[in-house]
């Protein structure tokens, strides 16, 4: 028996190809499904908050997704756990470094580890990722050195990694823009005849942006191999989801003609299964999918805002009970999937990571002044050349003075 026994049972899916509602019907559906903020959503869940596996026999609606993690061994579960713990540690370290003045800003992923590790571990090396600015866990899965994520927050660069090495695009700050880049990239993948897929991350706030709607349109009409992975963390800075939508987000896909699925974003196994399922659809040439990972941002939007001004403690506490890491730990303990030695060793590893992050950030040099003029253009530009020369001469005028 599980506490969320009513909430976890019925995955919601919409498919533009299967259902056709008339205008009146659509109106009725919209009104009927508009959920108050506190209502328990229905979503794909494979691991309950208490760490119990949900079986297909208990919930036939997960039958479509469960096979996608049938191969997951206990070793794999420990690896997923390790990913989440280390990502959280890295994130916590970065938050602390911002408080110490070492970073100008930090966008914490606290609470969203399962959504990011589950989806990130579903990807193949030749898939391509378009993140927003909070996908530290996905970056971890892609093999991007986490310290490279800190450069832009420290103010020494706007990226800090070569996107083509890890197939992990630079963080995009203007929300939703990257969903179009992902769609275009996916159009290119299809043109190339490749069988890789593309995944675009964005948040519930970004879903209000026109670019996201345009990305849905383009990907649908060109049948592009792209997965839209929305982490609905309930808050866009201080704006709750009811300021973004009247209808559950995943249902929006239906209007564009592709499936939308809502998954428990705090369940790493379900996120892995649903993302694999969506990626497989893309690879088979069945076009885009919208995955709504229903999760929660436990921290602030960034270190600049104060969540106590806009949300209730009870809400945060309720989500603490669904913690993605504690959930998997409970499962590992209950199934003898990991022993104390494993957790102790992971703690040591975590300490080592934290220490390295601190050291690397503090040692990060400021860029050379003349870097202002570098890479503005690939083919050069007369004005940039002129201003570079003028500024260099100006700086040189101080040398030997005084």
């Amino acid at each position, binding site marked *: 028996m599980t506490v969320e026994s009513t909430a976890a049972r019925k995955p919601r899916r919409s498919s533009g190809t299967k259902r056709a509602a008339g205008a009146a019907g659509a109106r009725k559906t919209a009104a009927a499904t508009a959920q108050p903020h506190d209502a328990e959503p229905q979503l794909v869940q494979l691991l309950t908050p208490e760490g119990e596996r949900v079986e297909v026999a208990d919930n036939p609606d997960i039958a479509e997704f469960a096979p996608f993690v049938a191969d997951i061994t206990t070793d794999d579960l420990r690896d997923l756990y390790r990913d989440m713990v280390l990502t959280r540690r890295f994130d916590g370290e970065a938050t602390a470094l911002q408080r110490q003045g070492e970073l100008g800003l930090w966008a914490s992923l606290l609470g969203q580890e399962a959504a990011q590790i589950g989806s990130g571990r579903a990807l193949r090396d030749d898939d391509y990722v378009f993140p927003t600015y909070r996908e530290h866990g996905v970056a971890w899965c892609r093999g991007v050195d986490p310290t490279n994520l800190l450069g832009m927050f420290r103010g020494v*660069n*706007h*990226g800090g990694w*070569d*996107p*083509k090495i890890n197939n992990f*695009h*630079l963080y*995009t700050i*203007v929300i939703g*823009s990257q*969903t*179009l*880049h*992902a*769609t*275009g*990239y*996916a*159009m*290119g*993948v299809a*043109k*190339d005849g490749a069988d890789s897929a593309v995944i675009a991350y964005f948040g519930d706030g970004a879903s209000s942006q*026109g*670019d996201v709607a*345009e*990305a849905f*349109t*383009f990907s649908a*009409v060109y049948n592009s191999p792209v997965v839209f992975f929305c982490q609905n963390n309930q808050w866009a800075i201080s704006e709750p989801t009811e300021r973004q939508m009247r209808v559950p987000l995943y249902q929006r896909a239906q209007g564009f003609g592709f499936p939308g699925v809502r998954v428990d974003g705090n369940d790493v196994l379900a996120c892995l299964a649903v993302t694999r399922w969506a990626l497989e659809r893309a690879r088979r040439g069945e076009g885009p999918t919208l995955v709504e990972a229903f999760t929660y941002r436990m921290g602030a939007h960034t270190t600049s805002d104060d969540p106590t001004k806009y949300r209730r403690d009870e809400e945060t506490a309720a989500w603490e009970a669904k913690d993605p890491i504690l959930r998997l730990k409970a499962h590992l303990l209950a199934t003898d999937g990991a022993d104390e030695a494993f957790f102790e060793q992971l703690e040591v590893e975590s300490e080592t990571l934290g220490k390295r992050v601190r050291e690397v950030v503090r040692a990060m040099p400021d860029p050379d002044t003349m870097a202002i003029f*570098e*890479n*503005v*253009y*690939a*083919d050069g*530009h*007369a*004005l*940039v050349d002129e201003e570079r020369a003028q500024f260099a001469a100006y700086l040189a005028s101080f040398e030997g003075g005084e």
Partner: protein
Amino acid sequence: MAVQKLTIAKALNDSLRKALETDPKVLIMGEDVGKLGGVFRITDGLQKDFGEERVIDTPLAESGIVGTAIGLALRGYRPVVEIQFDGFVFPAYDQIVTQLAKMHARSLGKIKMPVVIRIPYAGGIGAVEHHSESPETLFAHVPGLKVVSPSNASDAYWMLQQAILSDDPVIFFEPKRRYWDKGEVDVEAIPDALHGSRVAREGTDITLAAYGPMVKVCLEAAAAAAEEGKSVEVVDLRSMSPIDFDGLQASVERTRRLVVVHEAPVFLGVGSEIAARITERCFYHLEAPVLRVGGFHAPYPPARLEDEYLPGLDRVLDAVDRSLAY
């Protein structure tokens, strides 16, 4: 035969055809560019010959057109997108300014953005609103973008191919009221540098600087002035970012006077930048302040008023007289 007499529209069409033939990574994208061949028929026949995978009709969504072109460029393609009219580029302005222009710099040079955005621009065709604007300053002001505009068939043919070959994003403004002007195109010539200016007519008393649709007006003004015994030099800037200040300076040092002419509003326009820079560079050569002729600080007017709004022969000649009177 290497030299052909073509309209600007046909020269652009031939240029796109050549680019599609030369590089399989070149794609054409935009609204109505396929079967219709574009509302100005610049892409006429290209989809028929190169297929729907190379010449792509898009949804009516400008941000989507540019945003997906960015993604295609990331994948190794060289998209040439058409924005149907000048005033329709603004839904895509965010993608152009916040994404396309900065991708190379923020990736520390790891990413190149060989995207060309073709925009039929400026007035003179009696269109409704949003179909006659000259927003070049808004793009020239953005680091990371290059902005050019041909004024004749030969430049139309060559500059477009050079823009497609560029690894930088290029905003390619096409003077729509000149689409049907004919000129000689030597398809075997060695073209001028994409961002260099060109002396379109030599003269000794004053320099007129213009680009795109206003070059023809300035050449007509120079011809009219010649009948009054004034020798007017006309410089076709061709590029608004970068601007060939060396070339322009050389002309102004010869003539000692400069009038800049464009359709865009004068305030904070390309002419303002030229006036400032040329004043810095040529302070001791100038016999008169640099003057500007252009649009007003007002929305582009209804078509029945555009002849009053657009710089014509008389307004250009008036400025020439004012300069010579110093």
